[in-house]
């Protein structure tokens, strides 16, 4: 669980004040509203949030895949290895996708093309992004498939996706994303459709791959269990903003934002009996109709008058641990 030795100049990805808005008929939806974080080489960041918190749009913005219209990245910087992705042309960006920045999405059933063999799909990424002779492409494809523990890779390359189980397909998707050794790999809920024992296999595999190649990994999830198992850093999102950011131990031991605290208390625990779970009242807010002030205020157990008037500033709780809440000011 410990991250590798890092210094500040190891930063591979820096996101600064990212804003992605959607124009809808109900008005402007600020799906991502001023998100900043940085990621060092070999570090695993978990972005936690519920549906509508903006975690997936953050991921799409990093890949510059926000559907436009209705969505627009209206501000901020995304600096990957010293280059600002938002200043790049579409052509430069498509060279980067899959080579420097990889993506594993949730559903292995729909992210593979059913009419091509898996060998075909893995080698496609290699052919596009790597300048290697044709003869070596197959070799490299088999290498990658072995890396993700596909048994009998030589015969499996000729299989179609429907001939494989869900866990196996998700590993193929993983193989495609790591085939070009990306600096940053984004995994958007990669295990939600998998069974528990298959999920454990897959998480172990991702962790091993990440350690071996020292890549930076962003985990997008709603599950604190995955965070506890996989991540070094955690960013908790609510209504388009990061409300708390810190190391995984800070977040679990001293959650500072009431939302984080409530979420942690509302999850049943495997290791101990819980008499009664804390339940957060109300629903997650609709983004086109956010309340004034802190969007969590209507559900918060510590609400003060000030919370309903003004959005709280980011407060440093300890080194590397910050939260946006008036209680901390």
């Amino acid at each position: 669980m410990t991250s590798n030795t890092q210094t500040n100049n190891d930063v591979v990805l820096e996101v600064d004040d990212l804003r992605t808005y959607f124009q809808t008929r109900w008005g402007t939806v600020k799906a991502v509203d001023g998100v900043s974080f940085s990621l060092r080489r070999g570090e695993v960041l978990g972005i936690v949030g519920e549906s509508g918190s903006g975690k997936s749009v953050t991921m799409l913005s990093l890949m510059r895949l926000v559907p436009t219209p209705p969505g627009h990245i209206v501000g901020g910087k995304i600096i990957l290895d010293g280059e600002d992705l938002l200043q790049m042309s579409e052509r430069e960006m498509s060279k980067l996708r899959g080579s420097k920045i990889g993506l594993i999405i949730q559903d292995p059933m729909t992210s593979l093309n059913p009419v091509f063999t898996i060998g075909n799909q893995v080698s496609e990424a290699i052919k596009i992004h790597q300048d290697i002779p044709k003869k070596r492409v197959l070799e490299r494809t088999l290498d990658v498939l072995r890396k993700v523990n596909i048994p009998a890779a030589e015969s499996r390359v000729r299989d179609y996706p429907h001939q494989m189980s869900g866990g196996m397909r998700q590993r193929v998707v993983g193989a495609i994303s790591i085939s070009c050794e990306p600096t940053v790999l984004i995994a958007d809920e990669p295990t939600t459709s998998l069974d528990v024992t298959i999920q454990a296999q897959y998480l172990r595999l991702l962790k091993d791959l990440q350690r071996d190649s020292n890549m930076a990994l962003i985990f997008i999830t709603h599950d604190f269990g995955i965070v506890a198992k996989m991540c070094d850093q955690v960013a908790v999102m609510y209504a388009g903003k990061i409300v708390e950011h810190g190391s995984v131990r800070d977040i679990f031991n001293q959650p500072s934002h009431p939302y984080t605290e409530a979420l942690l208390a509302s999850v049943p625990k495997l290791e101990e009996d819980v008499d009664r779970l804390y339940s957060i009242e109300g629903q997650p807010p609709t983004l086109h109709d956010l309340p004034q002030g802190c969007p969590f205020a209507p559900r918060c157990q510590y609400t003060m008058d000030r919370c309903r008037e003004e959005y709280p500033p980011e407060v440093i709780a300890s080194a590397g641990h910050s939260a946006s809440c008036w209680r901390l000011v």
Partner: protein
Amino acid sequence: MTLNPTQMMSSSNSVEPEVLLEASDLKKHFPVTSGLLFSKVTGYIKAVDGVSFRIRVGETLGLVGESGCGKSTTAKMLLMLEDPTEGSIHFQGEDLYQAGAAKRREYRSSVQAVFQDPWSSLNPRMRVKDLIAEPMVINWQLSRGEVSDRVEKLLGDVGLNSYHANLYPHEFSGGQRQRLAIARALSLNPKLIVLDEPVSALDVSIRAQIMNLLKDLQQEYNVSYLLIAHHLATVRYMCDWVAVMYLGQIVEFARVKDLFNNPSHPYTKALMSAALPSHPDIEQDETILTGEVPSPLNPPQGCRFHPRCPVVMDRCSQEIPELKEITADHLVSCHLY
């Protein structure tokens, strides 16, 4: 392989609530056919293969296992949506498949279900009041006023307001819809509710609301639950008894506290170690299973778990282990015991 129900009976003392439902040696085999016109049966998928358990009044039994282990088919047989190939279900002491049509009709209305996805389980064209009233209108002779009084009471019980009665399902959020599904399931005062992954489609912050609601309603209505879940922590929070299933059979059956404090079957242990920890400092002994669940069309000889088992012995591939009681009310089917 059969669990001997009397064996369990003997160990339970008189303080236990009475048994509501007892399934003995339930089997469901689906034929696999080949050929279009003169199709012939080429094999059977043994989705459920000899499952026995009992559910007591006011208690919750959890069925845990991976996809394809037969937990949903078991639930469907209890709901009489599938007829078992073999075996029997006794409800309040009466054999359902020997009973007459009237008794079976009564059974159907006293066993209800809440499904995983509240977006597809509620008819989008019906108003909430009609959705909740439908089972009562069909099964009971009530006046219109009595029905609407009861709808109002049910809405209140699940934490909604009476003004919600005139709305349509699309006007509700996921958590509220699941509340509606629960209200509908409760409308006939059922004795047993089958909960098929009731919270896994909901947002994290909503799950605790629904789980707490289900627990409160169990107290109030004294209803029994059969909970199907894959999330072990949810099972620990919700259940009194747990049955762990693998490839159509129960491999371990115990009280929730015995199962979590002393998981005994290697598959249960593997499930526990594969489950995600609740804190980063919790070190898990990682016995990650290799491979995947074999096909139920052609299950392995002997113990069905032996190809993936970390502590496999010679006899495991030849002899089928019996479900044995290792301590009071704790049954395991493994040659280790």
